[in-house]
């Protein structure tokens, strides 16, 4: 039974190490939970940036005396009053004083400080690269392949035609038939006729298309003063469209947010780290943190001194307007978004997946009219979710009841009246 002894010892050792590690782990976990519940509202969770309170990374090294640090955490006001220099200095960080934690046990404070050290020294995870920019390359490759194939086919057709005419000439020669010298192809009336008709069709198509396209901007994708990604904001971070464009609910235009709305979040979010890599429409990589710095320039915000920010000094950002209606068309957002319950994406496309916003819809009259022909109106005037504005249309109601109509389209309630849009 002697060989079993070392095995037991080893197992015991492994078990012991495991136990030690798990205890350490539990401590760190505790520290995290405590940090989240007591500190995280004011101290940034990455331990590196200043928030309402200063960044906590390396706080132990700065304080030297851990006992005094514990005193500060328990009752910072008393420590400042006692004149301890470090405490006096930190109390000047902000006008907001830190909460008091007089009954917090020392073990908890140690656990929190351990977690702070752990988090501060953690190597940041590198964001996984997005697959952006490859789609365009694929399309280009396909076009090249198609071009080469059609060129080869055209070449083969040309060679075959040449061979055919030579063979014919040869057979004519052997049979002794005299034919007049064929006229060159550019004098051949059939060729000229075919060419003219073809040019007329192709040219006419493009001319008509160009004329229809006048004053329409489908695909318009201008460069904006700041690379603002709707994908990151509305897609990944799930910010409601109406958070920034709240006026779409109550007015003709969907508001372009003023700088203070951006700063609601970007006062705290000072760098772009956790999202996917960003690419502009030419496939160039975009540095998100540098774009946030551009916002700070407009806002007059100094990330090192957030408390001193004065929103009234901010300069407006000159965004380029993409969706333009001609002057002779009246379009009202609230009428569609609030009354008609139309989703933003119906007209603007999948904005929440666009890094660079592009006009997806035609915004032409035919496009508008088509939607008005098809969209069913939600009357539902007995309950509050319905559209009570049109509740006077008793006739439709009765017609539907008696089976004369099965539904009411926008057209039926005046959606095709010229004056709805042109006046």
């Amino acid at each position, binding site marked *: 039974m002697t060989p079993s002894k070392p095995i037991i010892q080893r197992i015991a050792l492994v078990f012991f190490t495991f136990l030690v590690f798990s205890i350490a782990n539990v401590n760190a976990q505790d520290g995290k939970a405590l940090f989240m519940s007591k500190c995280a509202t004011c101290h940034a969770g990455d331990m590196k940036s200043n928030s*309402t309170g200063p960044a906590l990374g390396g706080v132990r090294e700065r304080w030297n005396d851990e006992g005094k640090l514990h005193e500060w955490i328990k009752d910072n006001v008393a420590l400042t009053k006692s004149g301890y220099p470090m405490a006096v200095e930190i109390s000047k960080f902000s006008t907001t004083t830190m909460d008091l934690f007089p009954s917090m046990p020392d073990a908890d404070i140690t656990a929190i400080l351990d977690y702070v050290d752990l988090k501060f020294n953690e190597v940041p995870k590198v964001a996984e690269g997005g697959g952006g920019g490859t789609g365009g390359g694929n399309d280009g490759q396909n076009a090249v392949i198609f071009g080469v194939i059609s060129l080869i086919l055209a070449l083969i057709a040309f060679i075959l035609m040449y061979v055919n005419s030579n063979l014919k000439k040869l057979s004519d020669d052997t049979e002794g038939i005299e034919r007049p010298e064929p006229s060159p192809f550019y004098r051949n009336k059939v060729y000229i006729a075919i060419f003219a008709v073809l040019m007329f069709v192709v040219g006419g198509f493009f001319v008509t298309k160009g004329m229809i396209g006048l004053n329409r901007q489908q695909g318009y994708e201008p460069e904006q003063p700041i690379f603002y990604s709707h994908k990151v904001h509305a897609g990944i971070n799930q910010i409601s469209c109406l958070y920034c464009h709240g006026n779409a609910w109550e007015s003709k235009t969907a508001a372009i947010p003023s700088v203070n709305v951006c700063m609601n979040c970007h006062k705290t979010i000072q760098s772009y780290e956790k999202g996917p890599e960003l690419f502009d429409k030419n496939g160039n990589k975009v540095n998100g943190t540098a774009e946030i710095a551009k916002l700070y320039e407009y806002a007059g915000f100094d990330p090192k001194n957030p408390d001193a920010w004065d929103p009234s000094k901010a300069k407006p950002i000159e965004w380029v307007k993409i969706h333009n209606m001609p002057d002779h068309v009246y379009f009202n957002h609230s009428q569609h978004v609030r009354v008609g319950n139309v989703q933003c994406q119906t007209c603007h496309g999948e904005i929440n997946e666009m890094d660079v916003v592009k006009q997806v819809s035609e915004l032409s009259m035919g496009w508008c009219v088509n939607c008005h022909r098809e969209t069913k109106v939600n009357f539902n005037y007995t309950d509050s979710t319905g559209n009570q504005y049109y509740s006077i249309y008793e006739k439709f109601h009765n017609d539907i009841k008696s089976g004369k109509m099965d539904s009411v389209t926008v057209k039926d309630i005046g959606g095709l009246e010229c004056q709805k849009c042109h006046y």
Partner: protein
Amino acid sequence: MKKLFVITFCTLAVAITIVSCGGSDKPGRSYMPDMSYSVAYETYAPSDERLKASGATYNHQPVKGSIARGDAFPYTIPKSDSGYARAAFVKNPLNIDSINLKEAERLYLINCGICHGAKLDGDGPLYKGGEGPFTAKPIPLVNDEKANNMTDGTMFYSVTYGKGQMGSYASQLNTKQRWEVVAYIKSKQAKKVAPAAATGAPAADTTAAK
């Protein structure tokens, strides 16, 4: 002669096509621009030199003291430490029974839920338990002693002027809407007060025991 005609026609067609396309960087051309572009200044339309010189921009504040139609009486407590203390005694001027909580919920979900969470638990998509981009932890609005004890007036003050890492929401929500949101949060707290007391006690015990 015919050939010449065809060639001119083709070049013309190509020229028009190129001119009208314009590429994705430019808005393209318009036929009869005086019918397309407004003579009067349009909201958010590009501003010309004259407008720029006058200093008018899309995010101008309304004239001081103006009250929008349908809005509540303006809030007069200034942004200051004493203002914060005074704000605690301000009561909600709206008739609680007349508030449409469904509308208040909509406003909450759009403007507040992003950080404070759709369930008011302080864990919205921007924070995601510390995994999201927002580094400061938003306070939970239910099951939290601090939020439960906060008066309507203090809450309104914080929504109006911002507090800590939270910005001012006065430009996104008008006075009436802000009171509605406060009423919504308070109505949710009232519903959860009983479970809050139950879960709060053992948590305090465990920290005391250590």
